Each structure stands twice: as structure tokens, then as C-alpha cells.
């Protein structure tokens, strides 16, 4: 069976498995950093765009549109290969994390903004009339209600971040994809690549299912 030997060679997989596992570790830690930081950054951006003074609102608007326009791969290559020319040098991991956070943060900002705007005006007025501080109004009243609207698209955004970590392999970051290509040339056999593909799908499939479950659940919960 030539196909089995070429693409699903158990022996090759066994030999290159440790490489794949270490790559997976890097991919997952980059994902976690990217997802968590881009959410925090996105929330700050959303608040700036909604409630900042005029210059801040304008700048945040420009930021969001810019980073939603630039292809992630281009941004990553600029950060890693171009910035060193002006003596700004980041490690592959930092470059990749930075690019992911800058872009995913812009998307998260728009998601949070939509969520906050979905909270009825009366909720803000009731909070203000009670004398709540801005911070308490957001934390106790507005954000808990916005979260419901925000969770499905935010989970979707996280899925994208996890997928996009694979781009980091072009800046020589030893993530799952990079390690798999490495292993492929070492073993002169594409099985590690197939293995990596399967690992990506196994991790992401459940997340994709969760997103659509959440979407239908929140859609039906709306009174």
C-alpha cells in the first residue's frame, strides 16, 4: 500500500511525534496569549471608541479599520523582517503574538462595541440615576449583559486566532506547522504534515461546533 506508507507511515509518525508535540505546545501557548491579550486589548479599544473624547474616538476608529485591512501575514513579516532595520527586533514568538494581538484586538473591539451598543439605553440611565460610578456601571450592569451578545462572535474570533498561529511558521517560530515541515524534511516523508493537519482539525472541530451551538442558544434565548 504505497499511499499508506507515504501519508500515514506509522513508523515515521512515531519517530517525529516528540517534534509535533513540542510544536503543538508552542501553538497552544501562542494561541492562549493571543486570545487573552486580544480580548483585553479589544475591550479597551471598544471603550475608547465609544466613550473616549473626540481625538481618541477618531484614532481608535483609524486603528480598527487599519488592522482589519492589513493581511495578518503581511503585518507579521513587516514586524519580523522590516522592523529590525530600525533596530526594533522581536523574537519569533513575540512578533507572532504582537501581530495576532494587533489584528485580533481590532476585531474583538468591534465585537465588544456591538455588544455594548446592544444594551438598552435605559440600563445606562438607571445606573447613572443611582449614582453608580462609570466603572461600576460597566462592570456590574453593562458588560454582564453585553457578554451574552458577545460570546459567540468572540469564540469565533478565538478560533481564528488559533488557526492564524500557523502563519507564525514563516518567521521561523517552532509551532506545530513549522515542526511538522521540519519533521517532513528530516524523515523525507509527508506523514508528519498529515499528522499536524489532523491535530489542527481535532482541536478546532469541537470549537467550531461550540460556536454554532452558542449561536443557536443565544439566538433562541432572546425572549
Amino acid at each position, binding site marked *: 500500500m504505497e499511499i499508506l506508507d507515504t501519508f500515514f507511515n506509522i513508523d515515521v509518525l512515531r519517530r517525529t511525534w516528540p517534534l509535533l508535540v513540542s510544536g503543538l505546545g508552542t501553538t497552544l501557548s501562542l494561541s492562549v496569549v493571543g486570545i487573552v491579550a486580544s480580548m483585553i486589548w479589544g475591550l479597551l479599544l471598544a471603550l475608547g471608541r465609544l466613550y473616549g473624547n473626540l481625538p481618541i474616538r477618531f484614532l481608535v476608529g483609524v486603528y480598527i479599520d487599519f488592522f482589519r485591512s492589513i493581511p495578518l501575514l503581511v503585518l507579521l513579516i513587516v514586524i519580523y523582517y522590516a522592523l529590525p532595520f530600525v533596530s526594533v527586533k522581536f523574537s519569533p514568538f513575540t512578533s507572532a503574538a504582537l501581530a495576532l494581538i494587533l489584528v485580533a484586538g481590532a476585531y474583538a473591539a468591534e465585537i465588544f462595541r456591538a455588544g455594548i451598543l446592544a444594551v*438598552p439605553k*435605559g*440600563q445606562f*440611565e*438607571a445606573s*447613572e*440615576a*443611582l*449614582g*453608580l*460610578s462609570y466603572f*461600576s456601571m460597566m462592570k*456590574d*450592569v453593562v458588560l*454582564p*449583559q453585553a457578554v451574552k451578545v458577545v460570546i459567540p462572535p468572540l469564540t469565533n474570533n478565538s478560533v481564528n486566532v488559533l488557526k492564524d498561529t500557523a502563519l507564525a511558521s514563516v518567521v521561523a517560530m517552532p509551532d506545530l506547522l513549522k515542526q511538522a515541515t521540519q519533521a517532513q524534511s528530516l524523515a523525507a516523508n509527508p506523514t508528519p504534515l498529515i499528522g499536524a493537519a489532523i491535530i489542527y482539525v481535532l482541536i478546532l472541530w469541537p470549537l467550531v461546533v461550540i460556536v454554532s451551538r452558542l449561536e443557536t442558544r443565544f439566538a433562541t434565548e432572546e*425572549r
Partner: protein
Amino acid sequence: MENFIDIKCLNKHYGHFHALKDVSLQVSEGEVVCVIGPSGSGKSTLIRCINMLEEFDPSSSIVVDNIPVKKGKSLREIRAEVGMVFQSFNLFPHLTVLDNVMLAPKRVRKANADELREKALSLLDKVGISAQADKYPKQLSGGQQQRVAIARALAMEPKVLLFDEPTSALDPEMVGEVLDVIKSLAHTGVTMVVVTHEMGFARQVADRVVFMDGGEFVEAGEPAEIFDNPKEERTQKFLQAILNH
């Protein structure tokens, strides 16, 4: 008696629309004032200016309890002692009835949790909702929700209570239970300004009735005076239209 709420030459524009025209109104401590008038006459806008949910033209002046109402630090101070009850209740849907009542005192007054709970429960008891303390707002009827909203406002121990058409969003059979609660609060020392379409209620509870029309203060007086013997033609027309149908 001193003017507890002092509104002088209040003007408010929405773009080119002149919503409030030189409105002046003084309310003394503990007084109950009902504001009546046709829809769009500016009565809701007027009371929403008192706690600055609406901004007003800078030439105007509102003073509550000797604190000028303006943007900045003092505004939260005023809001903490001016309670408001809205037409659409605006309860916090993600919090239980009890937590709705406890949130503001917990955050603003930073009081002890057990005392707060105790007090919140006694307030809910006062408005007749204590049995529903652990339910969520959407599990309650409109009348019950509005009574919770009143308890929520009372929890801050306000010196002033503003009611913005508190019964207009209610089914007719629930209007009475809410008005009864508001009546029970009148003349207990708290100053009340009530925007309402319930003329029977206004006649019964108000110390003074203010009639507004087209963004203007038309006339004010004791309920009997305004309802039985209005001086201004606009007041007469309005009362005829709503009382004889």
C-alpha cells in the same frame, strides 16, 4: 421653607427644537409636586434635567440641596441622593430582585453586606415584593417590576424621588398597586416630583400641581385650584380633553 430644588430659567434644545423654554420651578423640602400636561410638553425632559440625564443649555441653573447640577464630581453626589423611577422600569435583568435593590448602596455607600441585605428585604417588604426577592425581573408582572424599581431607588435613602410617568407602561389593572406605593411615600419627608397622567392620583397626593405645555411652564397651584378652577386657557382645554371622555 427653603427651596430644596431650585430650577431657574431652564432651557433645553434638541438641535433646533426648543424643548424647554425658560422653565422655573422651586420645590421645598418634603413637598410633593405633580407635573401634568400633554405628551411632548417637556415634563419628562424637565425632571430628567434635575439629575442631568439630559444636559441643558449652559445659561440655565438647577440647584438641588444647595449643590449646583453640573457635569463633574458633584453630579454623582446629587444622583446618589436623587432617586428616579422610570416609565419602563429599567431594572437590571441579569440580577435578582434583591441584587437590583442592593447594587447601588453596595457600590456607592459601601455599607456592610448583611445590613444591606436586611435593609433591602425590608424595603421589598414595604413595596410588597419580599416573597419574590430571589426571582429575576422578567419573572415578575409589570406592576411588581415597578414596585421593585421604587425599592431600588429607596435603597439609596434619597432626599428626592423623581417619577417619570411611573404607571404609563403598565396594564390598567396594575396601575393601582404602584400608585398605592407612591402614595405611601408621599409626605414621609422625601421630596417628590411626579410626572403623571393619573389626574385622580395627582389631585389626591400633590401639594402642588404644575401644568406644562409646549415646553413652557403654564401655571401651578394647589390641586383643587388647578383641577377645579384653572386660570389659563391651555390648562382648561387640556383638562376638558382628558376629563370628559
